[in-house]
């Protein structure tokens, strides 16, 4: 009887996120996954835009109205940053796949470059966007 009860107990799990020290590479790994997760659902924004363009002027007016609102622009700004960050993070991963850039200092340097680069590039993209927008 005791044995039967034992077998029904929850199996022990491996240690997860909460027990590890928060280091920069650890956070970057998390950022890469989280930005990928967010971009996944954000793809619907692109699909909506393309479908609206294919549907006609009134559907396109709706999508343009939403992306023109404060909330819409905030969503697009977040989407742009996530896209740039995930792209730079992806390039970093591809670089690592060649066996390079894995030294102690290099990992931190690449992490900082990814964060800094993603913010700078997002601002550049949006500045160009506002300059050329009609």
């Amino acid at each position, binding site marked *: 009887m005791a044995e039967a009860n034992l077998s029904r107990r929850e199996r022990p799990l491996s240690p997860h996120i909460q027990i590890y020290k928060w280091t920069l590479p650890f956070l970057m790994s998390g950022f890469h996954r989280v930005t990928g997760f967010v971009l996944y659902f954000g793809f619907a924004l*692109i699909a909506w835009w393309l*479908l609206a363009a294919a549907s006609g002027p009134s559907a396109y007016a709706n999508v343009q109205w939403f992306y023109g609102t404060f909330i819409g622009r905030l969503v697009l700004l977040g989407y742009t940053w996530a896209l740039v960050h995930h792209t730079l993070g992806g390039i970093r991963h591809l670089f690592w796949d060649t066996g390079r850039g894995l030294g102690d200092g290099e990992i931190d340097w690449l992490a900082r470059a990814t964060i800094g680069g993603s913010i700078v590039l997002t601002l550049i993209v949006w500045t160009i966007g506002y300059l050329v927008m009609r």
Partner: protein
Amino acid sequence: MAHETKTVHNPPAAARYYGSAHTGTQTFWHQRITSVAGVPLTIAFIAIVIALLGRSHATTGQVLGSPLVAIVVILFVASIAYHMWIGMQEIIVDYVHGPVAKYLALFGNMFFCSVVGLASIYAVLKLSNGV
């Protein structure tokens, strides 16, 4: 045994698909291919979006439907849809363990990626046909 595979899992576990899928390397490789393709395609897509900011519906439709832009957008959409299917599958198998929840999530993932990917491609093809 007619079909013998080297595995540390016992047969019932393999039968319930808890064993290795044996296609991990291919999945890893496809994720790399789509990420390499994704870099120039993402840059090109951002440039296309910037060029179309605030433009009228007619102009947007004409630009999106022009051959070069349409092909770039279709390649972008296709490679990203496949890339995000693999990525979300990785997240699901990492965190979702209940058998029902896991398969609902895996199926939902496939349906979502197929729908947004194919709907986007359809939209671009429709615009291309109109030009």
